């Protein structure tokens, strides 16, 4: 063991102790910011009335207090075994790449619906999502996505009469063409 090992251990311990408190701290800071914002709601308060900022302020103060409670909880349970704090087992390991891929895809499908239209965006989304999630066979991916999209188009376009996004520019014409092909319109 090197001479500075205890110091390193101490630093690491302190960092670990602070980590669980980061979340409550961030929420606390955001609450303070929002509390400041509530000042603009009460520009002309009626005399004798609490005004529109009263309720959000009460909630924000309670939220800040909750952050303090949570931080204290994290501090007090730190270093205890998982069983001591009522956790039977550690959370399962996460595949970070898969998770990021899925999140990006879920976020991308929303502008995709606006630009490409629901039909095309959903078809592409289903293929890519199932691929990222772990399905490997491309032909079955395409067939499932195609049949699934047609089913959803019929269900929501023809049965529920939901005006699904048709997309912009050329994609609008393409969606209308698909709808005509499927006798949806």
């Amino acid at each position: 063991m090197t001479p500075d090992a205890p110091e390193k251990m101490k630093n690491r311990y302190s960092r670990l102790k602070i980590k669980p408190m980061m979340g409550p701290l961030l929420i606390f800071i955001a609450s303070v910011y929002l509390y400041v914002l509530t000042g603009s709601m009460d520009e002309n308060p009626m005399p004798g009335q609490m005004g529109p900022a009263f309720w959000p302020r009460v909630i924000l103060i309670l939220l800040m207090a909750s952050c303090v409670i949570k931080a204290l909880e994290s501090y007090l349970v730190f270093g205890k075994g998982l069983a001591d704090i009522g956790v039977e087992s550690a959370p399962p390991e996460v595949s970070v790449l898969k998770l990021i891929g899925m999140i990006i895809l879920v976020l991308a499908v929303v502008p995709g619906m606006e630009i490409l239209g629901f039909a095309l965006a959903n078809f592409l989304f289903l293929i890519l999502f199932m691929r990222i999630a772990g399905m490997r066979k491309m032909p079955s991916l395409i067939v499932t996505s195609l049949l699934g999209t047609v089913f959803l188009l019929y269900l929501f376009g023809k049965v529920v009469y939901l005006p699904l996004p048709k997309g912009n520019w050329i994609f609008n014409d393409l969606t209308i063409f698909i709808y005509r092909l499927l006798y949806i319109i």
Partner: protein
Amino acid sequence: MLDQLTLLGSGLLSTFDPLNFSMILIGLFIGVLAGALPGITMLNAIVLVLPFTYLMGIVPSLLLMTSVYCGGVFGGSITGILFNIPGDPMNVPTTWEGYQLNKKGFVSKALGMAIMCSAIGGFISAVIMTVASPLFAKVALTFSTCEYFAVVFLGLASVVVIGTRSIGSAFISLFIGMLLGTVGMDEIYGTPRFTFGSRIMETGISFTTVLIGIFAIGEVLDQLSVKGKQAIIGRLRPKTTLPSLKDLWNLRNTILRGLGIGVTIGAIPGAGATVASFISYGVEKQVSKHPEKFGTGVWEGLAASETAINGSTGGAMIPLLTLGIPGSGATAVMMGAFLLHGIQPGPLLFAKSPESVYTIFAGMLVCNLIMILAGLVTAKFFSELMRVPEDMLSAFIISFCLLGAFALRNDITDVWFMVIFGIIGYFMRRYDIPSAPMILGLILGPLAERYFMTSIISSGNDFTIFFCRPMSGTIMVISIGLLIMPFIRGLIKRGMKKPEAA
């Protein structure tokens, strides 16, 4: 009383209308399916059927949702008994005993017992709901805004206290939900709050988008992001054997206790089927002559948990229908369905549309009876369905969610909100922050503000008004007691540990 029976009779007739009856069958099928498939909860299923109710009338919509609810709370026990995989957290105690009974060779009887106890619990709780709700509604008509505030406050307090490991996390989740509820135009003063200059934000954040995002998208991300997850493939093709009357008679006390716990816990806002299931199992273990045998395949454990789960369904509907206060995620979505059809749940609902209310009552009664048949037929089928790849199922769930959120106002902004809250929901799960308090905070927060502000304004800024009226004062004291209970419990625990350590 005669009026009530007449209304219930016409409700029963209305239930057998082809459209309504098919909604019950479809709802039960979807509910049991969702409950049985790990990764899809009963709540997900209710959220997913919501967009389909837009074009229906209120009665078929609510029958569809209540049958998904009833079927969903039962479905999870099938996979629990067959494969040791509870479909929902509420089915965990059932799984503890049911899977052990399966290993002992009683799989058919365990499935049958689960079905019967669920049906008995659900049916009797529906009867209790039918009898108690109108009485509750009559009392609720005498409520002023003070009593309403007190009840909402009780709901908020119990959400935090019951069923959460970390009080701090539950409080944070609750207040974030309440804060989200303040976004938009203030009801009393007409001032925009936290809109950041956006007109879309002025209408506020719809709790349905948050609900869909957190419970469906968050769940899917959570399930699929786990490393090395194996697909569940079952080869079991079980039969279902219903228990004899003698078997049920031998378990009568267990069933009655489970029912009492289920209905009572279900009626408390925020508690729900999971809490009912665990408490009922725990109580049964306490009163048993052989508590050491629990966990090794004991019929009492299975019956207690299953009766309480379905017993909670009728109980949970009481505060929703009589006070307009949803007590759980599932009833919150149902409240969404009411509001989508322009109907405000609450005591006036019984006066304005008694036909709808009694059709729901009748629907729940019928639903629980059909569930016996559905359970008998479907156990084999569901063991086959476990072979559907989760990846495929999850992708389609997200597609449904996108459509569901879009259908709310035909506005892509709602889809954005839904997706963002889905991602937030994933991180809440990951970091063990409960999402139920946030949802209920979002729903109950605006109600609490409305009743609080109205009471305070009408009383001339007298904050003691809530404690001066007997009913609201009692409820407020109970709520405060609930809030400080965990701290007292913690102090007692610490006090007990110190002498041990010494």
